C-alpha cells in the first residue's frame, strides 16, 4: 500500500511534532488540490501524509493595521476579504468554486508555475510570511521566501502558518491573463499596488506570475513609475521594463515568446485600469 499513514493533526504543535518525528518523508498537504492529483495518478508515492485541515490555521483577522491570513484559510475565505480588494480579486480569478473551497492560501505559495496566482497578489502587497518550526516562529518578506523553481526558504522542519498583509493596501489592480476566460492557467498574472502623494506615485509594486520560476517583482518597472502621474508614457515605460525583466518559460499553453509579449500588454492594461481610477478610492 502506498500511503501507510495519514495524519490530521489538531494543532500547530501537533503538526510540528509529526514533522519532527517523520522528517522530510512526510508529505504535507493542505487543500490537496496539488498533491492529491499526483497521488491519484501514482506520480507521487508518499508513505506518510499530513493534512492540515484540522490544525486551526485557517483564521483570517484584521489586527493592528495588518490582515493576518492563516495558511490554511481557503481561497473562498480570501475571496471574502473586501478590505484587500487585490486579494479578493486574485482569489476570485483562481480556479473554480470547488477548488477555491479546498485550496489554501498557504498551499498556493507552493503551486508550481503557472499556478500560484494568489502569491502574485501577496507579493505586490508586501506580505510577510510566518514560518513555524521546532525553534519557534520567524517572519520574512514573501519576496525573500521564494528562492527558485519550486524552492523556498522553508526548512524541512518548518510549516507556513500565516501571511500578513499591511493595511490599507492602497490602490491596486489585478489581471490574470489566460488563453480563455476563467479556470485556466495564466499566461501571465499581474498584480499592481501604487501609493500616491497627491497625483504622483511615491511607491509602486508590480508583481508578475507565470513568467518566472516563481512570482517575481518587476523592480525596474516599479522604479520607473516613481514620481510619475501614471501618464501613458509612464505606463508604456513600465510595460517595456517589465517585459525586459521577466523570465518566461514555455509550457502547454504558451511559449516564452508569447508570455514575454503579454507581460508588456498586460502590465500596460493593468496600469491603465488604475489610471482610469477603477480602484483608486484609497488615494
Amino acid at each position, binding site marked *: 500500500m502506498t500511503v501507510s499513514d495519514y495524519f490530521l493533526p489538531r494543532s500547530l504543535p501537533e503538526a510540528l511534532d509529526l514533522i519532527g518525528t517523520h522528517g522530510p518523508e512526510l508529505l504535507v498537504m493542505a487543500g490537496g488540490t496539488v498533491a492529491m492529483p499526483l497521488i491519484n*495518478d*501514482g506520480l507521487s508515492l508518499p508513505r506518510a501524509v499530513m493534512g492540515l485541515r484540522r490544525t486551526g490555521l485557517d483564521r483570517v483577522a484584521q489586527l493592528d493595521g495588518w490582515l493576518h491570513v492563516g495558511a490554511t484559510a481557503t481561497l473562498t475565505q480570501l475571496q471574502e476579504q473586501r478590505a484587500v480588494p487585490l486579494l479578493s480579486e486574485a482569489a476570485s480569478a483562481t480556479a473554480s468554486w470547488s477548488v477555491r473551497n479546498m485550496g489554501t492560501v498557504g498551499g498556493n505559495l507552493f503551486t508550481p508555475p503557472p499556478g500560484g496566482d494568489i502569491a502574485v497578489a501577496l507579493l505586490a502587497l508586501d506580505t510577510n510570511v510566518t514560518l513555524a518550526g521546532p525553534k519557534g516562529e520567524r517572519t520574512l518578506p514573501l519576496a525573500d521566501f521564494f528562492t527558485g523553481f519550486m524552492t523556498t526558504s522553508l526548512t524541512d522542519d518548518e510549516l507556513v502558518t500565516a501571511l500578513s498583509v499591511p493595511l490599507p493596501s492602497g490602490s491596486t489592480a489585478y489581471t490574470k491573463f489566460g488563453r480563455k476566460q476563467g479556470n485556466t492557467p495564466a499566461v501571465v498574472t499581474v498584480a499592481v499596488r501604487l501609493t500616491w502623494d497627491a497625483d504622483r506615485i511615491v511607491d509602486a509594486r508590480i508583481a508578475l506570475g507565470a513568467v518566472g520560476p516563481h512570482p517575481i517583482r518587476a523592480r525596474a518597472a516599479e522604479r520607473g513609475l516613481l514620481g510619475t502621474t501614471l501618464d501613458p508614457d509612464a505606463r508604456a515605460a513600465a510595460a517595456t521594463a517589465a517585459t525586459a525583466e521577466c523570465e518566461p518559460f514555455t509550457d502547454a499553453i504558451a511559449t516564452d515568446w508569447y508570455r514575454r509579449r503579454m507581460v508588456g500588454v498586460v502590465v500596460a492594461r493593468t496600469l491603465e485600469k488604475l489610471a482610469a481610477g477603477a480602484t483608486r478610492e484609497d488615494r
Partner: protein
Amino acid sequence: MSPNLTVVGQSVDRSDRIGHVTGRTQFTADRTFPGMLHLRMVRSPVHHARINGIDMSAAERVPGFVRALTAADVPHNRYTILSLIGVEPEEEFVLAEERVRFKGEAIVAIVAETEAAALEAVARVRLDLEELPAVFDVEEALLPDAPIVTHWGNNTFMYEGHPCRRVRLGDVDAAFAQADHIVEGVYNTSPIEQAPIETTGCIAVPEANGRYTVYTNTQALYFSLDNTAIILQLPGNRLHFLGGTVGGGFGGKVDVIVEPIATLAAMKTNRPVRFVYSRSEEMQVSSTRSAWRIYVRDGVMNDGRIIARKVTSYADSGAYSRQTPYSLTKHAANVAGPYAIPNVSIDAYCVYTNRQPSSAMRGFGVTMGSFAIEVQMDKIAEVVGVDPWTIRFLNAYRNGDTRPHRKLAEDATLIETMQAAAALVGHDLPDAFRSMTSAPRGDSETGGR
C-alpha cells in the same frame, strides 16, 4: 417517401433522462465485483527505444501485487484492429516486444489488489531501454534516412502496392496548363484528443462456465469482442461483451485497447479485473485525431470555375495505424470538397511516426479536409476577385455530377443549405444563386462537370 409520421420528427423525451439526472445510469466503471483486481500499465518513458530488459523484482515485493503480464503472456500479441475488414498487416503489440515506438506504449501490465498497489508496482518496475532516434514529422518520416517505425522497412501504410490512397479523375496536369490561375495552399492541423468525460475502460469477469463477461464502454461491441478473441486465441463464444451506455465517445472508444489485456489478466488470475484509463492516459496515450498536412493546388479560371484540384495529404498515424488507414480512404474520397471539379488528383498518405497513435475521431478524415478546402476556397475567391459565397455557388456540386471517386452525386443539397444559411444571416444573394438548385444539370450546362 412522405408518410404521415407520428413519432418520427417529434422531440420526444430521451429514454435515459431519469438515469442521467439522478446519476443512476450505470456506466461501465460503476460496477464492482467481489475480489476485483486493478490493472495499470508500465509505459515507455521515451519515444523510441529498444527494450533490453525488464526487472520486476521490486514491483513483485509491493504489498498487494498479484501478477505482471508481458508480451510473452499474450497468445497473439501482434494485431491490427481493422484486420476484421481485411486490413493488413498485423502491426501493433498488445504489450511491446523488442521495441517501444511511442512514449506511453504499454510494456508490462501490473495486476494488483488495489489501484494504489498497482500504481506503486508500476513505479517499481525497472526498464532497461536503449533509446533510438525518433521521428515526429510526417514528411521527415518519408525521407530516405528517417528512423523506421514499422517492422516492414518504410513509414507508410501500403494501399494495394501504393504508398498512398490515390483518387484520380480527368487530367489535372492538362487542366493546370489551361488554368488562368494556380492557387496553392498548405494546411496543418495538430493532433486532438477526443476527451470524453468518461475515460476508456472495462471490467473483465471470469464466469463459472468458463466464459468471460466483459463490461466495456467501447463504441463497437463486436469490434472489441472479435479482436479480443483473436488476440487471446479464444473462440468468440467464450466471450460475452456488455456495453451500450457510453459517457461520450467521439471516436476515442472505437479502438480495442483495454479489453484484450484485462480479459487476459482475468484468465490468468481467475478474478475480475478492472482496467480504466486515467485522464492522463486518455490525454497522452490513447489515440488522437491525427495531425494532418494537406497540400492543395487548384487550377482556376478567371470566371471562378475550379477546373483542377490536386491534393497531397499526410496523416500522422503515430506509431501504429489503428483506424487511420481507413480514415485516409475516407479523406481521399471527400477532400476535394462538395464542388464539381472535372479534374482531380489526390494522394493521401498514412504516415508512421514515433507519436502516440491516432485513430478515429468525430469527422474521421473529413473534418480537417473540410478545413483545408474551405480556407482554400476563400483564397481562390480572393484571387479571382469574387466574394466567398460566389466562389462556392459557382462550383457547388449537384445531383448527377461525377464525384472524384466516380460515384454520381445523389443527395447533393449544398446549394439549398447555403441559401438557407445566407437567409439566416441576412446575406443577400444575387438572383442567379437564389434560384440555383441541386437538381441535375441540364444539357446547356457544362457536360464535363
